[in-house]
């Protein structure tokens, strides 16, 4: 009986503090205001990238600012960024995306690229990407090396992670088409690893990123099954997994970790 008493004193309202799990409670988010969303200030430092439809990536042609230390993959002295990276920076006003005729693409065209689902990142995945990036996390596509320079070395610590990665490491060519092949190989309907996530780290280097802090996985509508969990754990070889669930624009992260309760005295 005493248990009930003590535990209920934590109550509903205090679960932010007591468990640290819930960021914002329902009521905090809504304001009965004019309906205008605050605009971000326009930036002076603006990078430029040109969309390459074949690669389904953008080739960065003007690099400004330090954000490129943790954005885009380095290949043959160039930086290529994925659609989620493009959109994230474009929304911030830190990147202008050009088409093949060097015409500036409006935000709408970038949203269309996400909406059509052909570029390896769904809108839900972008939302998760955006939230993590906004908090300073370093996020890359799962299994896609940040650069090919350190790939042999980093391959040692993540060797069991992803066959695609080792396939890429093996192939000498930095052929851009291999990157497309990698993205197209992503499955759509089952639990799958999507992003490699690193904690905020000012010393992050693409040439030696180390193991990610966790691999962010998405599922096909249901929580991961035991079989899916075990398959993913094998595939990601010891890197912790987190699962993302997004509903009504709200991004939720969950872990389903294997544990072993200790034998007590």
């Amino acid at each position: 009986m005493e248990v009930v008493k003590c535990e209920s004193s934590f109550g509903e309202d205090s679960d932010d503090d007591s468990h640290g799990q819930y960021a914002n409670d329902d009521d905090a988010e809504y304001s009965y205001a004019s309906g205008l969303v605050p605009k971000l200030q326009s930036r002076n430092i603006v990078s430029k990238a040109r969309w390459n439809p074949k690669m389904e990536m953008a080739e960065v042609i003007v690099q400004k600012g330090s954000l490129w230390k943790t954005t885009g993959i380095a290949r043959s002295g160039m930086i290529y960024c994925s659609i989620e990276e493009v959109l994230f920076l474009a929304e911030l006003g830190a990147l202008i995306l050009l088409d093949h005729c060097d015409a500036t693409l409006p935000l709408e065209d970038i949203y269309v690229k996400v909406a059509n689902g052909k570029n390896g990142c769904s809108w839900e995945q972008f939302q998760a990407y955006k939230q993590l990036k906004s908090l300073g996390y370093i996020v890359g596509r799962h299994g896609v090396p940040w650069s090919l320079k350190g790939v042999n070395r980093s391959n040692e610590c993540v060797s069991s992670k992803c066959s695609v990665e080792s396939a890429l490491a093996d192939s000498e060519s930095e052929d851009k088409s291999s990157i497309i092949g990698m993205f197209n190989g992503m499955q759509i309907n089952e639990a799958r690893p999507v992003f490699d996530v690193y904690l905020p780290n000012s010393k992050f280097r693409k040439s030696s990123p180390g193991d990610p802090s966790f691999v962010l996985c998405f599922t096909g509508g249901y929580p991961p099954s035991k079989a899916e969990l075990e398959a993913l754990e094998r595939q990601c070889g010891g890197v912790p997994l987190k699962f993302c669930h997004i509903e009504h624009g709200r991004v939720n992260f969950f872990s389903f970790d294997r544990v072993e309760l200790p034998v007590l005295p």
Partner: protein
Amino acid sequence: MGPRWKGKDSEAKAVKDPMSKIVWELQSSLIQLKSQGLLCGCSVLLAAEAEQAVLLNRACFGEPITAAEKDKQWFQLGLEEAFYLCYSLKCLNIVGEDKRLMNVEELWSFMKSKKAIFPDFYKAYSHLRMKNWVVKSGSRYGVDFVAYRHHPALVHSEFAVLVSTEGGGDVNGRIKMWSDVHCTTRLCGGVVKTLLVLNINENSQGAVSPSCVEKYTVKERTIRRWNPEKCREDHTVVESETNNHTVIESGTK
């Protein structure tokens, strides 16, 4: 999240008085007095002498029944508790209303007839009890069990436990939809518990006799909500520190 002891001396008390020893004392005492429980509905009623009453309380088996009878204290044991004392600890005999002693097989059939999922629940219960965790009903929190590091008077329960059956048809299937995950973790967060799912694999043993259950295997998994706003810094040091007290992460090797 480590254990939440009640008061500053509680942890020391628990260390001085390990649960394994208390249960062992209870076991010896029940054997010595040839204790008999009476099957009554979905419970087993047990009349305890003063010494046993103390031990049952300290080991957290059953609930005492408030009654005016002077020399005896009656206890009401749940199905898993009674079967654990009877089958695993071999310290309790159970009789039916005709006062006839029930053998283990009869008892097993009876438990299954009252609760189809009893074999899996029993596996979960005995799995945690054998690790010297105190296990009580979780119905208060909408889960199957709660697990305590020691007596509930000394410590809050750390885990809210759900039993899940692996393979063909999870009878107890509780976390099938994302809303189930949200609902259960939200509730557990509110009462400061970690959601622990025990996956029971029957390994095609069936449940004809209780000995089948010994061949079942149990895998433990915690489900937690992760808040990216509060986890931006590397907290591996803190984590390994709390791990000594709570759980050993097997996935991070």
